């Protein structure tokens, strides 16, 4: 990883953390609201299906997670497992793609 790359990863993690702070809050409030209100699965789906706003929100959430988590894991692997270099970064790139794929699939599933 180049020096420039390291600096860009740092700001990417900070920026995604700022997005996540908001997204996690909205997500938790939504869960609590749905559970306290006693909404059934069908009722939840009725609210999310065709709702572009929820699709956009969860898409942003998933993108932020896919950026944030692998960068954090990168530092953990460096510091706790002593693993650095290209092999680690390639694996974490795949992990980011995996998170993105399963996250967007879930967001799309409750929309379509």
């Amino acid at each position: 990883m180049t020096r420039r790359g390291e600096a860009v990863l740092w700001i990417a993690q900070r920026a995604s953390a700022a997005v996540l702070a908001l997204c996690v809050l909205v997500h938790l409030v939504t869960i609590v609201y749905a559970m306290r209100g006693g909404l059934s699965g069908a009722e939840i789906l009725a609210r999310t299906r065709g709702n572009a706003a929820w699709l956009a929100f969860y898409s942003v959430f998933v993108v932020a997670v896919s950026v944030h988590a692998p960068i954090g894991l990168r530092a953990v692997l460096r510091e706790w497992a002593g693993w650095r270099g290209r092999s680690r970064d390639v694996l974490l790139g795949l992990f980011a793609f995996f998170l993105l794929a399963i996250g967007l699939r879930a967001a799309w599933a409750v929309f379509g």
Partner: protein
Amino acid sequence: MSSTLHVRVWRGPQPGAFQRFDVPRAPSQTILDVVTYIQRVLDPTLAYRFACRVGMCGSCAMTVNGVPRWTCRTHVDKVAQAGELEIAPLRNLPPIRDLVVDMREFFDKWTRAEGRFKGATTKQSDFARVAPDSEKRRDADAGIECIGCGVCYSACDVVAWNSDYLGPAALNRAWTLVQDERDAARVERLQAVAGDAGCHACHTHVSCTERCPKNISPTASIAGLKRAVLKAALEGEL
């Protein structure tokens, strides 16, 4: 206040062990006084390092009851209310013998962080006029009083996990030079403190700031470097 201190002192090259001494209490007694008493009265083979005894030279830092401290300015009253003391060498640096650690890696990292002033003028040049209340000068002044004792380096968990990490003192030094208007090596220095072992490896645990005996905040200096390095990266200077 009991009249005797029970002191456990780290002895030996590796693997080493703690040795117990009983030292008489005295008013205004410092940890360095305790160590000196042990060496002069109880066991002349004890190895430790000190020079000025007044908090200027930065050579007497040790781990006292688990906390890195400058021993010449640490009073026994402050850290050993129960009359028990455990004195060990600084963490994160290779021990040589007893309480003495090898500081080479610590100072080599100052060099690696381009911690040396590089001017662009000659002795024929006029004095540089730097406004004392300018933001850059205030930043530099905030970190300039470092005495190189190694307490922050010993307190830093990132150093423990990533032995290449430059550490709080070297990065603080680099920041004071980055903010020095007279310095002519800004880009080289930002390059030196970027990367895997540089400023962005800091997790902002703030242990360095908590422990610095000079009340410097290396955390704030490193935060400044993070922003400066990012700006340089985005502008293509790295």
